[in-house]
C-alpha cells in the first residue's frame, strides 16, 4: 500500500480531531474569562453598594 495514502489518512483524522479539540479549548477559555469577569463585576458592585 502507498505509504503516502496512510500518511494522509492520519493527517485527515488528526485534522478532524484537532479542529474540534481546538474549538473545545476555545470554549473552555471563553468560559473561564466570562466567569472571571462576572465575579469581578459582582465584587465591584458589592463594594459600591
Amino acid at each position, binding site marked *: *500500500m*502507498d505509504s*503516502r*495514502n*496512510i500518511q*494522509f*489518512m492520519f*493527517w*485527515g*483524522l488528526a*485534522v*478532524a480531531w484537532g*479542529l*474540534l479539540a481546538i*474549538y*473545545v479549548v476555545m*470554549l473552555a477559555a*471563553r*468560559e473561564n474569562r*466570562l*466567569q472571571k*469577569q*462576572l465575579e469581578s*463585576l*459582582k465584587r*465591584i*458592585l458589592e463594594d*459600591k*453598594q
Partner: protein
Amino acid sequence: MEKNIRIGIGALAGLLLLRNLYVILFNLPDEMAQGPIYRIFYYHLPAYFTAMCCYLTALAASVLYLTKRDLRYDALAMAATEVGLAFAAVNLITGMIWGRVIWGIWWAWDARLTWALICWLVYFGYLMLRQAIDDPSERAKNSAVLSIFSFVSVAITYKAIEWWRTQHPGPVLSFRTGKQLIDPEMERMLFTNFLALALLAFVMVTVRLRQEDIQRQIDGLRRRAHAL
C-alpha cells in the same frame, strides 16, 4: 442538574468517538479502489451532516426570533452557527486532504466544493455582522434575516451533487439514492460517527448558550455599575 446532563452527554459523545475511531482504524477493511484514505469519510460526511443540523437549528431559531422577539432564540441561532462553522471546517479540510491523494490536487472549483466554501464564508460573515452591531435587538433582527437567507447556500450545497456534474463524488448513501451503493457496515459506521459528532455538537451549543447567558448577566451588571 443541567450541568450534570451536559457532562453526561459529553462523556457519552467522547466514548462513542473513541470507540468509533478504534473500529474505523482496526476493524473496518480498506476500500478496494482508494485504500486506507477512504477512512477520512467517516469524519468528512458526519461533520457535514452535523454542520447542516446546526445551520438548520440556526434557521429555525432565527424564524422563531422574528416571530416571538425573544433574545434566547437569537442566542441559540448564534451558538448553533458558531458550532456549525467548526464542523463545516472539519468537512472542508478533511475533504481537501482526501482530494490531494485521490485527485492529486488540494482543491477544485467545482459546484459542490465552491458552494461548501461559500456557505462557510456566508455563516462566518453572519458572526462578523453580529460583532459590528451593538444594540441587542437590532443585532438579533439583522442576524436573523441574514441567517434565513444564508440557509439558501446550505440547500444549494446539499443539492449541488445532483444538479451539476461535479468532480466531487455523487450521492452514495442509501437514503439519497434508494440503493445500497456502499457496504452496509461502512454506512452504519458513518451514521454511528454522525451520532457521536451530533451529541458533541449538542453539548457545544448548550455550553455556548450558557456563555451567552453569562454575557447578558455581565452586560446587566456593567450597566448597574455605571449607574451607581
